[in-house]
């Protein structure tokens, strides 16, 4: 015992206390989630600031005598005159597969009541996008399961495809369908033991939405079994503007972890219009000069630096990818507003949704004429390219002719045939929500349309024909579907088999 006491005494005598240097400031102003702090002379841009009472902030503006900080936690806990100190750390969020199946807030903290997140890694929220050397062009498809998109506006892994449209036109539904489709494909590959298939994990970032809307999305993803492959970053309308502005960056950091580790991820930003509004609020509170529509001058940079983080990385750097699907809500179809034009110019294509089409019953209400995918066709499945190559042109012709035919003039047989074909194509592209269609089925359906199998079917019964055809192929010709999926192209032999099967079905169709 005496030895032990001596040992402790020696250790105490040898112990040196080092007073670490800290940089402090005094909170002199607080309002709407933003604080002005006098002092903090060593603060760095985007550094986390300890505001006391367990509340942290983020240094966003460094002025001559004060620092503008956005408060990330409960700002009612922060008091004027309180002490703030620098931490030397940048804002970070937990990353990794432990987040899959979870609903987290902007800080990566769980909000689903399922206990703590199992993750030992974290990524900075603000990170420089991969450079030119690390990137490669898009070459693998993202099968959304939505027929008009997969056929005419294909999306590749690593692409940034904008979903744009007015309120209640089905923007979120397209993204949710895509997430469900990925989950089904992932599950199918797992069940088949397909090691070549690269699973696509999804991140859904809800910005400024109603809590009930987010709850509905979670319920849909849980019902369809997509939740185990999905992370939800929720920053609802009740969150502070700072949290809403940072939520997409937190989601991007989570997605980047998959990309950096050689995996594929898809991120949905729902929606960036609300994020821009939140950023405008923060900027105005920080007294930054405002520009067009009162947005700060760097609102373009806000979106470009976020979307640039989506990339397809070269094989040398892991071969991972991060695909981005940002959503923008327009007002009365005005795509020439400030934020829509900005995001259109940043992304690699856009899918326009129209209210008129929606109420005409064309759902998803995609305006194929002005929707484009600038890089996705390189990633499109060859079989789909073979059958859907002419579709966009045919539909455009149909719209033009249909507008002309409205005048009631007599039409020649060829024009009438084009209009009839167009009507059928529009019909087959109508699709129920949360019901993605496997790509093999899409190929078969489009092939039958292109080869005139639907020409004799009344337009009103086209959907019925499509459903029966799908049922027939999935139940009786599953091997043929598997062959299309395996070969990924329609060889002459496959076409002959397809023809035989379609003929057989046609005979049974009444």
């Amino acid at each position, binding site marked *: 015992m005496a030895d032990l006491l001596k040992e402790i005494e020696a250790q105490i005598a040898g112990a040196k206390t080092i*007073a*670490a240097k800290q*940089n402090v400031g005094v909170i002199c102003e607080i309002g709407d989630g933003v604080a002005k702090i006098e*002092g903090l*002379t060593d603060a760095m841009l985007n550094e986390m600031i300890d505001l006391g009472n367990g509340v942290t902030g983020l240094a966003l503006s460094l002025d001559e*005598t004060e620092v503008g900080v956005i408060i990330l936690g409960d700002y009612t806990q922060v008091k004027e005159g309180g002490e703030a*100190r620098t931490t030397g750390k940048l804002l970070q969020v937990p990353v990794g597969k432990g987040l899959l199946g979870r609903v987290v807030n902007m800080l990566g903290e769980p909000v689903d009541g399922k206990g703590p997140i199992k993750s030992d890694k974290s990524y900075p929220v603000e990170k420089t996008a991969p450079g030119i050397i690390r990137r490669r062009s898009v070459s693998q498809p993202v099968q959304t399961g939505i027929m008009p998109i997969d056929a005419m506006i294909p999306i590749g892994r690593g692409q940034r495809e904008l979903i744009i449209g007015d309120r209640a036109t089905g923007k979120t539904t397209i993204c949710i369908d895509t997430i469900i489709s990925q989950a089904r494909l992932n599950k199918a590959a797992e069940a088949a033991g397909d090691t070549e298939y690269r699973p696509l994990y999804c991140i859904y970032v809800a910005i400024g939405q109603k809590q009930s809307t987010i709850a509905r999305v979670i319920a849909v993803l849980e019902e369809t079994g997509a939740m185990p492959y999905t992370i939800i970053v929720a920053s609802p309308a009740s969150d502070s503007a700072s949290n809403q502005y940072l939520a997409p960056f937190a989601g991007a950091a989570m997605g980047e972890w998959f990309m950096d580790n050689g995996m594929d991820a898809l991120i949905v930003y729902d929606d960036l219009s609300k994020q821009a509004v939140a950023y405008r609020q923060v900027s105005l509170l920080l007294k930054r000069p405002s520009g067009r529509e009162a947005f700060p001058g760097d609102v373009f940079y806000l979106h470009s630096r976020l979307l640039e983080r989506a990339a397809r990385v070269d094989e040398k750097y892991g071969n991972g990818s991060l695909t981005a699907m940002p959503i923008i809500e327009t007002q009365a179809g005005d795509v020439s507003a400030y934020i829509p034009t900005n995001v259109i110019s940043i992304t690699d294509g856009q899918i326009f949704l129209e209210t008129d089409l929606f109420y005409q019953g064309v759902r998803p209400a995609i305006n194929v004429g002005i929707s484009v995918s600038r890089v996705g066709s390189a990633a499109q499945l060859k079989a789909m390219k073979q059958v859907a190559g002419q579709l966009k042109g045919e539909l455009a012709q149909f719209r033009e002719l249909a507008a002309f035919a409205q005048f009631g003039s007599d039409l020649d047989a060829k024009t009438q045939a084009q209009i009839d074909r167009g009507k059928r194509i529009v019909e087959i592209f109508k699709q129920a929500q949360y019901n993605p269609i496997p790509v093999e089925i899409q190929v078969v359906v489009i092939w039958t349309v292109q080869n005139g199998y639907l020409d004799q079917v009344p337009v009103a019964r086209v959907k019925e024909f499509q459903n029966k055809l799908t049922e027939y192929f999935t139940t009786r010709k599953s091997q043929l579907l598997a062959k299309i999926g395996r070969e990924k192209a329609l060889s002459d032999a496959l076409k002959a088999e397809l023809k035989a099967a379609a003929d057989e079905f046609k005979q049974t169709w009444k």
Partner: protein
Amino acid sequence: MKITKRAKREAKQLYRFCLVGGLLDENRVRQIVQRAVAISERDCPSILAHFLRLVKLDCAQRTATIESATPLPADLQTVVRTGLTRRYGPGLTTTFAERPELIGGMRIQVGCDVYDGSVRAGLEALEKSF
């Protein structure tokens, strides 16, 4: 009081004028305030308000507050004063204060820099680590 950009800029110019060899000259500060009050222009109050703020910040940067749980002996005070002057240069005003809640050790604040070697800070750090 709303302080315009112009008022800020002018206050900054006046503040710069008060610096002699990087240190604030108290006489110049007094002179400037007296002259500005005498002129009584419309912008004067806002210029002087910002000028006062800049002077305050400068004073805080040049003031070292040394707190300890018990009064420090004179020789230790000299050692601390010398060490701080070596680090922050001449012209530093040092004040010693007693703060029993520190339990032990010392807490030194020079402007925004804080060196906290108190027992209380150690306990708080320990609490955070749990």
